[in-house]
């Protein structure tokens, strides 16, 4: 279990988290919803150790896997080399095939469409040997079909590998379709924590999101 205990994070004068506490169950997918500036990306950076903070984070076996908002592929390396840069002994061909990118190993990032590049970023994260995957808006700006395909693919891969995943998103539907648990952040505080996803969850979360300024 990943635990954040009394975490305080400031950027200059701006306090993002003030004595923030959160527990994340192992082997589950947690989606984090919230408006821009609510601290979603900072939460991932704190868990992944990419930023300094006060407080304690336990249960994270570092380094963890990341899918960043941008693809962050190395432009001078091929797709295969990009994956092997972080996961030297990974079976790139088979990973690419699983995500519908068979034969793309020798392509350079500039030769990929946005959707293909996103898939490579996700493949890289799953190829990396870690217990935890942190994903910052992994399906943003993708067409509906690809978004659906990747959501299912990510869900299955996380479950079959028994990883703990935290997915940051703006999209309520996406959160409902991918996660086992959904938390909503506003100004560095948890305003909603849904642990059972039901048919009503989507409507409930839409209401929470529409009323975020009241929290």
């Amino acid at each position, binding site marked *: 279990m990943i635990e954040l205990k009394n975490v305080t994070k400031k950027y200059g004068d701006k306090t993002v988290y003030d004595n923030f506490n959160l527990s994340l169950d192992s082997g589950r997918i947690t989606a984090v919803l919230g408006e821009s500036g609510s601290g979603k990306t900072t939460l991932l950076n704190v868990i*992944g150790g*990419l930023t300094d903070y006060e407080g304690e984070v336990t249960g994270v076996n*570092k*380094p963890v*896997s*990341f899918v*960043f908002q*941008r693809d*962050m*592929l*190395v*432009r*001078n*390396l091929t797709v295969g*080399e990009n994956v092997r*840069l*972080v996961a030297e002994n990974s079976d790139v061909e088979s990973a690419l095939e699983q995500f519908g990118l068979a034969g793309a190993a020798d392509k*350079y990032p500039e030769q990929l469409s946005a959707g293909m590049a996103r898939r490579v970023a996700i493949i890289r994260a799953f190829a*990396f040997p870690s217990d935890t995957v942190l994903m910052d808006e992994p399906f943003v700006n993708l067409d509906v079909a690809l978004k659906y395909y990747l959501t299912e693919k990510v869900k299955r891969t996380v479950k079959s590998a028994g990883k703990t995943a935290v997915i940051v998103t703006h999209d309520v539907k996406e959160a409902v379709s991918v996660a086992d648990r959904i938390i909503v952040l506003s100004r560095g505080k948890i305003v909603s924590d849904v642990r059972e996803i039901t048919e009503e969850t989507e409507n409930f979360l839409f209401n929470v999101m529409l009323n975020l300024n009241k929290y």
Partner: protein
Amino acid sequence: MKAKGKDKILNFVCPAVTVAVILLLWTAAAIAADSDYILPSVGKTFAKAISLLGSGEFYAALGGTLARVFIAFLSSFTIAFALAFLSYKNGTAKKFVAPFIRVLRALPTVAVVLLLLFWTNSRVAPVVVTMLVVLPTLYTDLCGAFSGVDKDAVKMCRAFCVPEKRVFFKVVLPQITPNALYAAGAGLSLNLKLMVAAEVLAQTARSLGYLLNSAKVYFEIAEMLALVTFTVLLGVITESVFSALAKKAGSR
């Protein structure tokens, strides 16, 4: 495709026209001067250049100068690369390096050659002064190359804890190579010009500078012009080769 073909033709024609204009102006000036002691004709200079190519003394001088250029360039490039890498990795280090580079940039070349002649000898002084004068330019160019490294890629590597050595050889080095090669070409060309000037001043034995000085003493203006032309050609060839290498490296 047509535009590319036209570009290729223009790349060849434009420099050829420029060279032709220079030779035409030279010829006009030589006719106006009407004296080989002031400005010999293109033909006479060319004949002198051919005769130099048949002389063992010229090759010994060329070899000596090129060896010194190589040593000076290798030293300045190595130091500049190390300092630029240090500055790229550490902002505080950059602040320490900056005044050192500023001082080197302000060095009066001739005065330094004279001082170095007191402290060293006529073979070492040109190497040291050339190295010191080229170093700031190379450092600035290499800092520019390092600042062009994809910050997102480096951040990604840090997140995945990719070993520093692998990041350097797989990400940083390939990304700085094109600009570093451009810088090396320009640096080598500058190195050659400065070396010949320093050799003239230091009267270094077995050097192009020494031949230039001897030609000056005996009023061999055609030989001086031939030696200058060789120096210019060497500089142009060096820059062109490095520029082509940089383009090749930058194509991926």
